[in-house]
């Protein structure tokens, strides 16, 4: 946290992207989170990903609920649309906004309290319905705003800062998302932007419910020995199953990889997710295998990270509901009110 606005001066080599913006143009206000908070690194990763993908900030809607994580949309994409919902209710607001205007990029930012406790019902249904969105959970396993109680994602047996042992089973949001039919499921670590930025970029390119669980250490309340969500623990137990490169449809693929070491998944928009395999024989398009892998790592106390599952052929909520292609705000009176003759026809059809 700081009291000063970040100076406008920037490095002389700062580059502009295809829409004429520098990375600094994707920033927001200066963060008021605790110094060292993993969430700030996730904000930086979102900024980097959006800049690299030439996203127009005014075509983004960033939505969040309540909590440390849900404050962060204020700290990136200052020119995007924003909605700070009631605790745990971000998914339904996002779903509604998405139905009204399918042309925006929907970025839901939530935390483990917001999504795994008070808002779990909202979370599961937005995933289940296949809302076209990027849903990021900034997962620190602790209630930071209320000074460090265990959250629902805290691992059984891990200890609080004061030494209390957590007896409850954790909710694994990745496992839940896989079961509920999310079509892009990844896990990252706030301390590894090289991995996280491509995961966010891949999610932005994905059509359907893209879910990213990002382990994000809480420096104030959950970064001690005994925590399984500390910088040190995650670094020691991080098992990256693959490394992702996101290749926009326009660019040529030039790098050669040894046979069998790379899996490429083409998404609906023509972009290619290239997964450099780190775990032998891992198939990221096999949902059951992904679940198995996550559970197996979990049982060993390891944290499986990377792009765990992707279904590039997935349909989203709009296709399920056969909605209009045109956003509501561009439907004119003639379309919305087709006249008495049309009404007559409908009524006839119902007789």
């Amino acid at each position, binding site marked *: *946290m*700081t*009291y*000063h606005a*970040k*100076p*406008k*001066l*920037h*490095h*002389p*080599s*700062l580059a502009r992207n295809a829409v004429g913006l520098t990375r*600094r143009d994707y920033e927001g206000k*200066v*963060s008021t989170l*605790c*110094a*060292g*908070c*993993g969430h*700030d*690194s996730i*904000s*930086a990763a979102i900024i980097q990903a959006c800049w690299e993908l030439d996203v127009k900030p005014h075509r983004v809607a960033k939505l969040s609920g309540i909590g440390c994580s849900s404050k962060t949309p204020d700290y990136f994409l200052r020119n995007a649309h924003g909605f700070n919902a009631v605790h745990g209710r971000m998914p339904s607001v996002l779903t509604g906004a998405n139905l009204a205007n399918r042309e925006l990029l929907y970025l839901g930012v939530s935390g483990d309290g917001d999504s795994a406790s008070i808002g779990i019902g909202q979370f599961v249904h937005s995933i289940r319905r296949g809302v076209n969105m990027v849903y990021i959970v900034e997962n620190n396993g602790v209630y930071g705003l209320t000074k460090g109680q265990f959250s629902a994602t805290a691992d059984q047996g891990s200890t609080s800062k004061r030494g209390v042992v957590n007896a409850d089973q954790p909710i694994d949001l990745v496992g839940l998302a896989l079961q509920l039919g999310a079509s892009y499921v990844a896990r990252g670590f*706030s*301390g590894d*932007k090289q991995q996280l930025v491509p995961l966010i970029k891949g999610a932005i390119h994905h059509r359907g419910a893209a879910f990213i669980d990002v382990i994000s*250490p809480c*420096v*104030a309340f959950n*970064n001690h020995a005994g925590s399984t969500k500390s*910088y*040190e623990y995650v*670094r020691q137990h991080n098992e990256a199953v693959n490394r992702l490169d996101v290749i926009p449809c326009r660019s040529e693929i030039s790098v050669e990889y040894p046979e069998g070491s790379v899996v490429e998944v083409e998404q609906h928009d023509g972009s290619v997710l290239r997964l450099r395999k780190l775990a032998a024989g891992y198939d990221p398009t096999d949902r059951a295998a992904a679940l198995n892998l996550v559970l197996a790592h979990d049982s060993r106390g390891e944290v499986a990270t990377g792009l765990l599952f992707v279904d590039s052929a997935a349909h989203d909520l709009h296709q399920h509901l056969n909605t209009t292609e045109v956003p509501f705000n561009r439907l004119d009176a003639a379309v919305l009110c087709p006249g008495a003759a049309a009404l007559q026809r409908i009524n006839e059809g119902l007789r």
Partner: protein
Amino acid sequence: MKPTDISKPSYFHKVVDCQWACPAHTPVPEYIRLIASGRYADAYMVNWQSNVFPGILGRTCDRPCEPACRRGRVEENNGEKPEPVAICRLKRVAADLKGDIRARLPRPAASKNGKRIACVGAGPASLTVARDLLPLGYHVTVFEGDAKGGGFMRTQVPRFRLPEEVIDEEVGYILDLGADFRGNTRIDSMKALLGQGYDAVFVGSGAPRGRDLEIPGRAEAAAHIHIGIDWLASVYFGHVSAVGKRVIVLGGGNTAMDCCRSARRLGGDEVKVIVRSGFEEMKASPWEKEDAQHEGIPILNYRVPKAFIHDKGRLTGMSFELVRAEKDARGRRRLVPTGQPDEFHACDEVLVAVGQENAFPWIERDCGIAFDDSGMPVLDPQTFQSSLPQVLFGGDAAFGPKNIIWAVAHGHEAAVSIDKLLNGEPTAERPQPAVEVISQKMGIHEWSYDSDISGDTRHKVPWASAEKTLKSIRVEVELGFDQQTAWKEAQRCLNCDVQTVFTPKLCIECDGCVDVCPMDCISFTANGEEPELRARLSAPALNAAQDLYVSASLPTTRVMVKDEDVCLHCGLCAERCPTGAWDMQKYLFETSKAGPACRTRVPTGEPA
């Protein structure tokens, strides 16, 4: 790369670009902060300790600090034209607004130590020696050919740039320390001077001879051709009070600029500067060129003087060969004729300001002082001693024409040499600088320096109206900043002396500093060799003149690498750091002056 040794005084000193560039190592950010807080007298004293003539230098300094200023690098691509902090003019603010500081100056020594020093010439170098040695009890005799002290500053720098009362005041501070000043006393024999039994002799007699231009017509038209520095002195002494209507000034240095602007004020309606080299390569400071052009004086470049054209001794004009710059096979620039016909410029008078030379006709070549082939004394570049150890040289007399600030720096070093010499210590052992490193942390987000970065572009110094200044040679052109503008300009200073100090063992590698740094200067990455490492940082570190700060290896085996080049010293890295691995620490560096500190070595401070 090996971890950076930040305990070496030069490491952080180099980060303070302005102070590093200043020959006298004036702690610039320190006095700018004092100006910002309205402590003008304190700011003046910080300057006075280092550079002796803050009021004079605040108007006339060649400002080596300003091209070095980090602000001029970080504003690139951010403003229309990147500009450094107006360091020099802020110095003047301290001098203008300081009030009466006489009570804070050292007093004449209560008791003399019996050692006698002779200073030849009363210019900035000699006066610095006198100032450093007088309070220590030395008896210092200053010989000056003119009636008053000040040397070149008084007789060659014109009054519209430097009012005489400023010279009187600052020269007076030194002479009032108990100097034995002998005005109107020109030394014409070194042998005779050495015969008077001085313990040490310091030669600070400047580079008093203006270079001449021996081309056809020079002798015939001599009455209308003047050597620039002699002419400026004649103007000062009142021997010259008018000049012809059409004046050509030859030369591209600051003396040429002083000549043309003086001529403009003495009746020269049509004054031109004509210079051999290109405009960009001229030796004059950019602002002096600007000032001349602002007064309607054209500067014509790439013209080599060929002849003075005269009509039976009456100068009618000059002819010039037109040239252009070309690079030869070895990449050196040289001027080649364009082949166009020579150009004629009509004029009534010519001022020749094509350089200065040293002249020591008064030093007998058999008195034990060795001279080299070019007629310059052979000196030890550190101690300023000649081959006669008790005879030292400084200022323009030492290594040829430079600027006041260099003369001051020489004076300090020569005073150290004299003090050590006369205390039986080896002069080659130079004293360590005094270094102080203090954390600026006050609270969680509070620093004892103003860390906020001003977005202002450089503020202009107001000028007196042209019609007023061009009427009289005595009206000062620049008016100096007022308090409010001075405050705003002071805010542009980045406080580069408040250092980012990194403690690897506290770092948890959370990336907080990397994310918040506005300049992308911090990276956590695998170590490597410097050229390769520079290319793969968060932002490429392309300025090889600026160091990389490399930490010891961290738990993930990576290292922290910080590019010092464009750091704003805003302290955001330290504010974002959860463990205090980053701290902002003020680094005060002071060269040791003559006195006990230079004799008994002082330990350097302990940078944490």
